[in-house]
């Protein structure tokens, strides 16, 4: 029986395993040394905050793996013997494979700052990182977080729940400036400040200073300011976790290089998830996509190829979501921080400034290209349908209610959105077509 070995039990590796089992009875082994069982990485913050225990972040009960004949090996792969088709483990033993899937995820970036290896300085990625944060932040009063992305906000929220003051240093001029347009960035920034986080823009980290015990005591910013603190969170992005592959025959760049069927330069070896880099990404997509949802799709697609039905990756329309303290964020299609030539956007924000909608559209055809929603839930299938069918902005606005996914009784903003559009576009008046009601929730 063909033996498929998967390195990494994250969402990508586990989805591949589950789907290979779905299509076939091949022998399956999953190797990881982070945890025996698959858990949800985005849920790490909830363990720290006390919303959940580790047990509850595991999407499947422990019997699931045996029941579905998925062997779990708790070890680290030290080397891949591409000729002998073996994965060599840290414990010394090795596991032969017929097919190998590399799904080793990412590791937090560190940019060689002086003091970055002091006690109490760390990234936040793994279960072990979580344990370290718990230890390092016990009883402290002041923390610094460097880098304003999604993981940085999560870390800030975590620390705030334990009464720790947080200074949040961000290099850009507005929040998450590489992804969000300015208005959205400002909206999030206001909200973060409401939670008593000291958010500082255009502030870079220069150096981390320690005390005589090798523990962090302060950071020094680019402007030369010294900020005392007992914990430093480095959340300046992640990069593929592939050091152990770098000196093998498998071609790598930032990540493991793959074609659209996830095949690496070596036959029978595949790479998926955060650690994979497409040689030719499909249009509008980046070569390395480090999010949960893409890992899931990679796993599902590669399973088909491995089970004999070669299937190229067709990710469809981009989507993602996150939560900034209490403000939920969903995005569909492409919304860039800076608008491209030939694109325009319609932006609406509620008077309180904690909800907004942005719709990017083609300035000549009016076809919608992307959505940003903050504080309002939107229906994935509806937004996807509008983008895929290049629906025109006025039509989308008229049937906005169809995309509303907020719970019943929530205030609806469709009318406000339309009246703003009408005041910005006199002479092209539009009216709301459908309304959301208890009996008439739009389910198509």
């Amino acid at each position: 029986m063909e033996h498929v070995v998967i390195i990494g039990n994250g969402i990508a590796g586990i989805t591949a395993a589950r789907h290979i089992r779905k299509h076939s009875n091949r022998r399956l082994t999953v190797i990881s040394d982070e945890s025996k069982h698959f858990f949800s990485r985005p849920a790490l913050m909830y363990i720290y905050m006390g919303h959940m225990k580790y047990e509850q972040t595991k999407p499947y009960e422990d019997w699931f793996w045996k029941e579905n004949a998925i062997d779990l090996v708790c070890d680290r792969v030290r080397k891949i013997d591409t000729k002998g088709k073996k994965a060599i483990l840290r414990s010394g033993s090795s596991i032969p494979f017929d097919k190998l899937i590399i799904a080793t995820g990412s590791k937090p970036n560190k940019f060689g700052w002086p003091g970055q290896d002091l006690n109490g300085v760390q990234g936040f990625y793994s279960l072990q990182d979580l344990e370290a944060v718990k230890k390092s932040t016990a009883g402290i009063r002041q923390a610094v977080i460097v880098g304003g992305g999604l993981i940085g906000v999560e870390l800030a929220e975590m620390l705030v729940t334990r009464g720790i003051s947080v200074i949040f240093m961000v290099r850009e001029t507005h929040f998450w400036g590489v992804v969000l347009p300015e208005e959205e960035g400002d909206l999030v920034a206001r909200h973060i400040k409401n939670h008593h986080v000291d958010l500082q823009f255009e502030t870079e980290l220069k150096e981390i200073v320690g005390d005589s015990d090798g523990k962090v005591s302060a950071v020094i910013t680019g402007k030369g300011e010294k900020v005392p603190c007992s914990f430093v969170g480095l959340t300046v992005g992640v990069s593929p976790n592939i050091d152990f592959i770098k000196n093998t025959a498998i071609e790598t760049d930032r990540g493991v290089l793959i074609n659209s069927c996830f095949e690496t330069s070596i036959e029978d070896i595949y790479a998926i998830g955060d650690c994979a880099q497409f040689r030719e990404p499909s249009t509008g997509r980046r070569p390395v996509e480090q999010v949960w949802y893409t890992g899931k799709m990679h796993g599902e697609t590669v399973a088909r190829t491995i089970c004999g039905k070669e299937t190229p990756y067709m990710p469809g329309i981009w989507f993602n979501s996150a939560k900034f303290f209490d403000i939920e964020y969903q995005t569909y299609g492409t919304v860039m921080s800076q608008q491209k030539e030939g694109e325009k956007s319609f932006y609406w924000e509620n008077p309180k400034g904690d909800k907004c909608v942005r719709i990017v559209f083609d300035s000549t055809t009016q076809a919608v290209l992307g959505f940003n929603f903050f504080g309002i839930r939107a229906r994935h299938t509806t937004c996807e349908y509008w983008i895929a069918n290049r629906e025109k902005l006025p039509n989308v606005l008229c049937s906005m209610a169809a995309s509303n996914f907020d719970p019943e009784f929530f205030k609806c903003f469709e009318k406000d959105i339309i009246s703003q559009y009408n005041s910005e576009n006199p002479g092209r008046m539009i009216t709301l077509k459908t309304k959301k009601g208890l009996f008439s929730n739009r389910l198509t």
Partner: protein
Amino acid sequence: MSPPQKHTQPVRSRSQRIGLLLFFPGFIIALIGALGAGSIYPKLFFLASLCFITIGSFLYFSAAYLSAPAGIRNNRIMFASLSSRGSIGVIIALFFIAFYILMYWFPFYLEHFIAMFHPLSRMLRGKPAEQYFMYGSLYTFTIIIMGARALMKYRHSRYQIVRTCAVIFSQFVFAFLIPSILAAFNEPEKYVNYFWPLSYKDLFPSNVNYLLNFEGAISKFLLAWTILLTFAGTPVLTFFFGKRWYCSWICGCGGLANTLGDPWRQLSSKTLASWKIERYSIYSVLSLIVITTAILWLNHLFGGELLGQLSGGFIRFYGFAIGMIFAGVIGTGLYPIFGTRVWCRFGCPQAALLGIIQRFFSRFRITTNGAQCMSCGNCSTYCEMGIDVRWYAQRGQNIVRASCVGCGMCSAVCPRGVLNLENGPLAGRIKSDALPLIKSFKSGI
């Protein structure tokens, strides 16, 4: 995993501590009343205890929830002794159980505590209180106080606000005011928000005859009300809205679970094994009550020849085993151990019946939003009915489960806005939306 670290930061703010400082004297006053003083100064002890507890709780809850921006604040739930089966949780459970045992079987020992309710009972019903009036009043009071807490905690969600107001209203009016007024007019003291099969005696021949033979129109109305709600209201409303119209909006048991029980909702077991037990136990209770009602009617038609004295014995047995032990001692007493809806999930015949309708003939479902689920587990953790919501959500499938009471909490706690309680056409209700890529794949592991 190492055990959670100790927090050095104060867990409670100053106003919270003041709230507690007021709450405890209220509790102690009630205790002193129960030990004897309640019979001597009923009004004084009743009012003093009521005031301290009310003001203390309000202070505590507003300091805990209103001081932070609105949003999901489940911080520390898994560390706090009260909410994670720690010693405080166990002590509270023991206290609840002791209270139920005394109240059901040894009300004599609660004599002085019950005496504290005499003035209120005389005012409302024109007669002194007995143990069940005391229990009903305490129950209603608890739902109001803890309902206020739920309103503060979940104030960002209009669904939770409307729903919590509905259960408070329902308990106060249908299960407290109306029965008391009925009693004042010497009419049958009926909780008008309970129907057969939960209120199992309602359709027993003995009760129907009792109401039919009662003087006055109100008793006939009550009978008509029960029959109408049981045979028409229940199926129709459940068809349109799912069982939530009852379990999370009207029912007093559900009301207590979603107010007093809210701090413990995460303790329900989510395992597949517990789902299996649930199905056996809840449908057994439903079968028991349906068969019994049928037999009692047959017996009645045969003029009592079929069962003789047995029918009374059965009613007593059911009342003891199911009504008192299951619904009371286990169902409520063990909130801090097994979570809030033990009775609703494993025992309640009404929930069983509504569940069958919800599963097969209802427009209600929880919609899963495309592929946005990231399997975090908040929804499953906070589902009081022990439904592994994530199991469905992560595969893009809608949740259509007999046991879902539509409390809306899975939707509220989901950090990615994946879940939505909706009513809609029956076609495609249990659909799988799956990921954009693999829409054709529906089954599997």
